[in-house]
């Protein structure tokens, strides 16, 4: 139980540095979508426990940086929704960031695998 908790805490820390890329990637693959649908997609992809209090401020920051654009559309009988779209600048950032993350993750993977195979006790 404690070990599971530690893993979840670690994932939260890892996610902090890469959630923006995951959001941009989801927007690129899905096209225009709204906040709750984005959370559902990320949850289905394995990013658990994402909350509105995390995703909307992140989307606001990405919009401030010009990486996504947004527009409000009226809903069918319900309240209007804010739809987000990745911009060309967002696509470029995603391409660069993805390459950097993949290289970084590969380096860490190599280190961890090396420690597993040479994990001799003194």
């Amino acid at each position: 139980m404690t070990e599971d908790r530690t893993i979840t805490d670690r994932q939260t820390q890892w996610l902090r540095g890469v959630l923006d890329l995951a959001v941009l990637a989801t927007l690129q693959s899905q096209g225009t979508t709204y906040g709750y649908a984005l959370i559902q997609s990320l949850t289905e992809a394995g990013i658990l426990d994402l909350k509105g209090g995390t995703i909307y401020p992140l989307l606001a920051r990405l919009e401030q940086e010009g990486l996504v654009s947004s527009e409000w559309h009226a809903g069918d009988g319900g309240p209007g929704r804010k739809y987000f779209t990745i911009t060309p600048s967002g696509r470029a950032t995603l391409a660069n960031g993805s390459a950097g993350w993949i290289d970084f993750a590969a380096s860490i993977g190599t280190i961890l695998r090396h420690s597993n195979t040479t994990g001799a006790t003194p």
Partner: protein
Amino acid sequence: MTIRKGAKPKLAVYLDNLLLQLRLREVPGDRIGQILAEVQTHVADTGLDPVDAFGEPGEYAATYAAQTPASRPARGWSHVWLRDLGVFVVGTTACSAVIVGVLQLTGSVHVTARLLGMWLAAAAVGMVVFHGVLGPLMARDTAGSLKPRTFTSRFMVLGGLAMMAGVAVVVLIGLLPTGPTLASVPGLGLAAAGLLAMFALVRHLSGDRVVDPRG
């Protein structure tokens, strides 16, 4: 603005508290409208408790304040002091001008140079008291830690001081010996200038309206 409130009273209370917390952190009005609408839509979509989905209103507002340039306390103390002083002087002068102007029109009082001097001294003392004592007390956030002072909280204090100064002017009029009169200042002009200044101040302070992006 009209934020459409859902049937759940809890959401309505949450939106009210969030609006207040965002205002206290000087997040721009148009941005506040977007944030409130997002919360309302998300809660309608998910059926979640707003606190579970977004955290306490103060915490959620702080997230936006941290990323909104206009809400950051980036300005130096001298700027804050000058801005406060400007608002205080305009507000207090406007209140006093209206009162004294009307009294002059009715012929019941002569404004004296000494009286004006005393009022300015009182205003200066008020600024020191405000910054030194009241400002830090009002700047405490819900967690109890000191936060940068907000214009809203400052203005609440300034408004109170301005009203007290206006009352003080009226009281002092009856106590001071008559000095050189400012009879050349027509009471009507004084009252009109005061009203104009108050109108401009109110308009300036209420310019940043919260607008629902859904129309």
